[in-house]
C-alpha cells in the first residue's frame, strides 16, 4: 500500500499529537490529587488514621492502668497491677482521692503519651512525600484530646504545605473521633471513688440496677478493693484499685 506524502505528514502530526498529549496527560495527572504508594488515602486521612491508631493504643493503656499510661502505684492481683485511684495506707481511715479530675488527667496523659507518635505521623508523611520528590513544609502542632460521651475527640491542627513544582496542596485540620466508652467508664469510676472516699464503700448492686449497660466487678483482696467497670455492649473495661477503711486482722 502506498501512502501519499500528504498522508505521511498527517500521520506524523497525529503521532506527534498523541505523544504530546501523552506527555501533557502525564504532567496533568501528576498535578492532580497526591496519591502515594506507601500512604493510603490523602495526607489528611492518613494523619487522622495514624493519630487515631496512636491514640487508640494509648486509650487501651488507660483502660488497663486505671487512668494512667503506666501504673506507678498500685496493687498486684492475679499478675496484673491495678492502679490506686483512692488510697489510705493506714487502717480504719478513708482513702485520699489520688487522681482528682480524672477525666482531665486522662486527656493530658494520653496527649503526652501520643504527642511524639503523632509528630511521627507527620514526619512519616513528610519523609514519604519528600522521597517522591515533593517538598513538605510543616507548622506548629496544636494537639488536644477531649473525652466526651461515647467517644474521644482528637483535635489536631498543623499547617501542612506540600508542593512540587508549581503545584501546592495545603492542609491544616486533622480532627478525628474515636468511638469509645472511656468517658462513661471514667465517670462511673469517679462515682465509685467518690463513694469510697466518703463512705468506705460503693453500692454496686444498686448502681447496676440503675445503669444496666454497665457491669461493675469487685474483688476484695488483702484489704484492697479491685474494681473492673465494664461496658457490657463493647466488653471494654476500666480497671483500678482502692484501699479505704482497711480493717486489720484482730484489732
Amino acid at each position, binding site marked *: 500500500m502506498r501512502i501519499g506524502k500528504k498522508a505521511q505528514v498527517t500521520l506524523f502530526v497525529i503521532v506527534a499529537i498523541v505523544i504530546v498529549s501523552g506527555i501533557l496527560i502525564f504532567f496533568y495527572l501528576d498535578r492532580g490529587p497526591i496519591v502515594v504508594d506507601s500512604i493510603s488515602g490523602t495526607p489528611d486521612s492518613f494523619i487522622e488514621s495514624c493519630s487515631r491508631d496512636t491514640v487508640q493504643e494509648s486509650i487501651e493503656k488507660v483502660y488497663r492502668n486505671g487512668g494512667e499510661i503506666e501504673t506507678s502505684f498500685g496493687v498486684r492481683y492475679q499478675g496484673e497491677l491495678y492502679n490506686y485511684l483512692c488510697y489510705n495506707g493506714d487502717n480504719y481511715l478513708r482513702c485520699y482521692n489520688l487522681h482528682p479530675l480524672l477525666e482531665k488527667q486522662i486527656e493530658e496523659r494520653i496527649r503526652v503519651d501520643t504527642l511524639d507518635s503523632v509528630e511521627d505521623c507527620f514526619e512519616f508523611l513528610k519523609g514519604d512525600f519528600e522521597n517522591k520528590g515533593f517538598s513538605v513544609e510543616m507548622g506548629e502542632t496544636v494537639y488536644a484530646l477531649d473525652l466526651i460521651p461515647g467517644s474521644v475527640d482528637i483535635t489536631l491542627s498543623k499547617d501542612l504545605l506540600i508542593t512540587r513544582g508549581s503545584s501546592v496542596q495545603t492542609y491544616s485540620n486533622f480532627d478525628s473521633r474515636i468511638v469509645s466508652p472511656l468517658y462513661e467508664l471514667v465517670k462511673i469510676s469517679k462515682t465509685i471513688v467518690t463513694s469510697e472516699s466518703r463512705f468506705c464503700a460503693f453500692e454496686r448492686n*444498686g448502681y447496676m440496677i440503675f445503669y444496666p449497660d454497665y457491669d461493675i466487678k469487685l474483688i476484695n483482696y488483702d484489704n484492697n478493693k479491685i474494681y473492673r467497670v465494664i461496658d457490657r455492649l463493647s466488653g471494654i473495661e476500666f480497671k483500678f484499685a482502692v484501699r479505704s477503711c482497711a480493717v486489720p486482722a484482730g484489732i
Partner: protein
Amino acid sequence: MNINKTKTIVGFELITIIMSLFSFSYIIELQSSYFEENVDDEENGILNKAITFVMKKIMDPIIPLVSASGHFSLEVTGCCKTSVDNEICSVVSRDSCEEGAEFQEGVLCEESAFCQRGCCFDESIGSFYPHVIETSCKDSWVANPTCDLPAADLGCCFLGTTSRFSTYGECKIDTENWALSNNAAVDWDGSISEFVCAIKGAFPTEGACILFDESCSIATIGDCFDSGGQFNEGYLCTAKVLNTVCEKTEETTCVAGKDGVYFVDSCGNAANIYDASKVNDQRYWEKIIFIDESCGYTNSNGNGGSLTCGNCDRFKGGICRDAFKDEINPEYGDNYCKPTECIVTNEFGTITYETGESWCDYQGKIGEGDDVVGSLHWINICNQGVVDTTNCGDYRNGICVQKNTFELGDTEVAFRGAGCATNNGDSCLALNQDEDGIEECEETLNCYIRHIEVSEFFQFDVCVPKYPRGFNVKSERSQAAATEICGFASLECEVVRELDFFGSCGIVANKECLTDKFAEEMNELCRGMGDCGADVNIAGRITENYKVYEDGERLFLRLGSVYKNSVRALSRNINGQVAEVEDYTPYLRAVGLGVDFDDIDVGSSRIDDEFLAQGGINFAAAGGAYGLAATYSAGYAAFVAGGDIVVPLSIAYQAELAGTSAVSSAGAAAFAAPAIGAAAGFIIGVLIADSLGLPGIAGIQMGVGAALIGAVAGYAAYIAYIGTAATIPVFGWIAAALGAILIGLSFLWGESCKNSDVKFTCEPWIPPTGGDDCELCNEDPNKPCTLYQCNSLGSACDLINRGSSEEACISDKDDGFAPTATPAVGNLFDGTKIESTNNGFRITDTDGGCLPANTPINIPITTNEEAICKYSLEQIEFEDMENFGSRFYTLEHSLVVPLPDPSHGRSQGLEFSEEFTIYIKCEDIFGHIGPVGSRYLTVDLCVDQGRDFTVPEVTGTSPGNGFSLGYDTNETDFLVTTNELSTCKWSKTDVRYSEMENEMECNDLIFRPSNPTGYLCSDILPLNEPINTYYIKCMDQPWLEVSDFESRNAMRESFIYTLKRPEEKIVIDYILPDREIITATDFTSFEIEIGTNAGGELHRCSYSISGFETMVPLFETGTSRTHIQTGLSRPVGNYHIYVECLDVLSGDTVQGETEFKITKDTTSPQIARIFQDENVLTVVTNEDAICKYMTTSCRYNFEDGIDIGSFRTHTITVTRGDSYYIKCKDEFENVPSSCSIIVRAV
C-alpha cells in the same frame, strides 16, 4: 520426783505462769479479796483501764507505733506526705518517709495540715472530687472535703432521648457535645432524683422528627425543635403518612437504657419492640407502641430466651443482648432477650435468683460465736444471669447479712437482698466493762449474751460477739491482740472446801470446776471470743488451745468426744442460715445521718402514673425492681445526708452502703435496714474515738504504744524497765458478780480447809501442724483463697506467689528435721550473762554468780526455723509443757520471769532450792519436736538466797498517781501494789513507817499476787482538798515474827501519792450552732462546737441528734476546752442537738442542748429599684447579685449573658427602644428560669 523438787517446780511455775499471763494476757480474777476492793471502783475509772488497754490495741493498727524487740526500741513514727513506697499521707517511720517529704512526728495524717482533705474541682466542666489533698489538685481546691458547693449539686441532665445524673456544669458540657453547639439550651433539673432521672431518660416523649432534607429521626419535641425539624409525636419514621425515606427492615437493635429488643428502620432509628409476627405488618411500623401493648408483656420471665418477642424486662428475667455472642438464633435480627435469672446449685439443691437479688454464703455454721476458724462470709449478686461472688472481708472483718422478703405496699414480696456489714464483734466484749453492759448487750448489734453455767456458784452471763472475728496466725501484732482478746475468757473458779463430819476436807462448792464440764463450758466462752481455744477450721480439724490449772498446777481436764464432735460439726454448712439484718436506725440517727428511714419520702422517687401509662418498665409487676431502685435512692439519700462523717465513723458508711444493698432487696418497707453495717461500723468508730481519744490523736505520743506492744518483753519486764509505779489494771466484770457469793461461802464455812483456784486459760487458736489440707483452699475458683483461709488450714500452709496469677495455697517443704535452739545472747537483760553447758546454757550474773531474787530476768533463745517452744521444770512430754513466751511460730523466743527467793519460800512452807534447771523443747510447723527423744535444751539457773536487804517497791496504784476524782468525791477506794509481799501504811505527813497511822489491808499470799502489777494492799483515802498528798511506805516479809522485825525492810523514802479533786464542776459554756444556717443546697455541712470550762484537765464531749441515750464522741475533743465535730451534713430542717461532756478524770458529766434551723435560700435576687438616667439604666437588687442581660429573649444560659456587675447596683448603657432581658444570680446560684426583669429603654 522428790518433794523438794516438786515444791520448787510449783513455786517457780506459780511465778512464771502468773507473770506470763501478765505479760501476754490479762486475767479475770475471782478472788474475794479482790472483789471487796473493787466492786465500787468503776466510778473511779479503774475498770476502764482494762478496756483502755484493749482499745490501745485497737489504736495500734492506726498508728503502727514501734517495733518491739527485746527492750522497747522506739521508732519515731508520724504522718508522712510521701513515703518511699509512694504512699500518700500515711503513718510511717521517719526512715520510711521520702527524703525531703513533709513529716510530722506523732501525728495521724487526719490531723496533719499537709494532709488536710478538701475538694478539688474545675467548675468550668462541673467536675468535683472530694477527699483530695491540696497538692494533688492541679485545679481549684477548697478545704471542704465533701464538696458541699452549690455547683456540685447533682441533678438530671436530659440529652436528647437519654438522661444523665450529673452536675449542671457536666450537663452543660455534655449538652454542647451532644448538640454540637455551644449555645444549646441546657436541660438540667436539680430537683429530680437519680432514680427518676434514670426512668425519665428511658421513657421520654418521642416522635418522628423530619428535617428539611427529609431525613427522619426519633427525637423528643425539644430536640426536634432545636434542630429545626418538624415534630410528629408518637409517629415512627416509617409511617406512610410522613412519606420519609425510612423503611421497615428485619433488623433489630438494643437501645441504651432500655431493656427491650427493638426493630430498627433503614435510617437506623429504633422502632417498636421486636415482634417476629409483625415484621412485615405496616401497621406496626406506623406509630410508637408502648411496651404494655407489645408482645409478651405479661410473660412472667420477661421474655428471657424468646426468639420471637423482644419485650424484655430485666427484673422479670430478660434484657436485650447480642444473640450472636450467645449462639442464639432469633427469628429476625441479631438480638434477643437474654435471660437474667441465675440458677444456682449447691449441696442443698437448686435455687433460682432474679437479677439484682443478692444472698449470702458461709463456710460452716455462723452466729452465736460458732463461726469456724478460716471461714469467711461471702456475698453473691445475680448480675444479669451471672453470679458475682465477693467476700465480705478477710478474718471475718465483714459479715454478710440477708433479708429474704420486703414489703411493697400491703404485699410482702419475696426478694433476697444481702449486704456486707462491718463486724463490730470486739465492741461486745467492751460492754462487759459497763455497769449496764449485759442489758446493753441485748440492744447492741451483733452481740449476744452467753450464759456460762458450770455449777450453782459458778455461772454468769457474758456479752460476746455473734460472729467473732479471726486472727492472723502469722502476724505477731495480730497474735498479740488475739492473746488479749482470748484472755478475756481466762477465768478462775474457786473450789471451796470445808471440814466434814469426819474431819476431812470436802468440797462444798464448785466441785464441777474440777471436771471436764468446766473445760467444755469454758471452752465455749473461749471460742466465742474469736479464733481461740479448742476450735475447728474449715477443713474440720480441731486444735486445742487451752489449759487448766489448779492453784498453779496443771490440771488435765479433757474435752469429751461428744463435745469435740459437736465442735467439728460446726465446719459443715447449714441450709438456710443467714445473719439477720438488724435495725440500725437509732445508731444512724445518733450521728445525724439524716436517715430517718421512716420519714423518707419514697414518693419523691416514685415514678408517676404517666410513666407507667407510657409502658415503661413494668415496675408494678416487677415489684422487686421498684424496691431495689427506690431503696437505692433512699440509700443514696442516706449517704448524701451523712455528708462528711468524721474518721471514726467512716466505717459506718461502708456498712451503711452495704446495708443499702441489703435493704435494696428488702424493699421500701425495710428502710430501717439500709444501714445494716452502719451501726456496726459506727460502733467500732465510737469505740475507737471513745477509748483512744481519736480527737487527741494528734497529741498521742507514739511511745505510748511501745509498752503496750512490747509483748515479747512482757508487762513484768515493762514494770522493771521503766521502774515507776504504774496504774493498776483491774478486771472486774464477772468478778463482781461472783465475788459476793464466794465471800459469803467463805464466811459461812470458815477457812479451816484450803480452797483452790481452778483456772481456765484461753489461748489463741493455732492451726494443725503440717500442710495436708492446704490445697483445699484452691478448690473453688469462685471463692479465691485468702491469706486467712490458707493459714488456717495448717501451720505449713502458705499463700505463695501473692498478687500473681499463680497465687495458691500450698504446703511449705518439710526438711524432715526438728528445730534446734540456741541462746540469743543479745537479748539478755543487763546484769546477766550466758555460759554454755553440755545440753544448753546457764544464766548467771555478770560475775558468774547466782541471780538476785525477785528481779525479772529474760531467758532468750533463737530457733533455726520458725517454731513454738515450751518449757518445764521436769522432763515431761512436749504437749504438757508450758509455753515459752508466745504461742507463735517464730525464730525468737523469750521468757521473762522474776526468780523466787528460796528462803522466803521455805519460811512459807515451800521448799525451794537455789539451783534448778529449765527444760525446753521446740516444735516446727510440721510437728517435728526438738531436741528429739528424751533430750532437752536445758537452762541452768541459780538464785540467791539468804537474808533480804532490799526494800519493797510500789509498782502500781489505783487510782493512778495524780488522778483527778469527781467534784463530789469525799473519799475513794485506794489500791497499791508492791513488787514483793509487804504490808503498807499511809500518812498525810512524811514520817517513818512505824509512825504512819493508817495501816492498809494486805491479804495476798507469797507467790499469789492478786494483781498483774504485784501484791495488793488497799484502803480508803479521804479527799478534803483540791490537791491531796499522801505518803505511802511498805515493809516486806510480813510473815516474819515481830521479834524479827529488824529483819524486815521498810521503805526509807515514801511513795508520794496525790489525788486531785476539781474546785468546780465541769460546765458547758456554749454550744454551736445556735442559730439559723442559710444554705444554697439541699444538704449543707456544718460543725458542732462546744466550749467547756472548770472541772479537771481533760474534758471529752459527745453529741447526738436523737437523744442522750445514744451519744457519739465528737471528733476533736479532749485536747482543749473547745470540742468540735466537723463535716456533719444535714438537709434543711429544724434540729435539736444533745450534748454531754465528761470531766474524764473526775467522771463528772454535764449535759446541754441546742436548737437550730437549716434554711435553703431558693429565692433568686429581686429587683428592688430600676431607673434610667439618659442612656444609663440602673438596676438595684435586694441582695448582692451578679446580673447579666441579653437583648433577644429570656431564653439564654446565664453564663452567656452580658455582665452588668456584681453587688447590688448594676448599670447598662442602653439604646432607646431596645428591650433588655435581665437575669440576676445570688451567691447561692439562685437565678430565675426566665428573667429577673424585662426593661424597654426609653
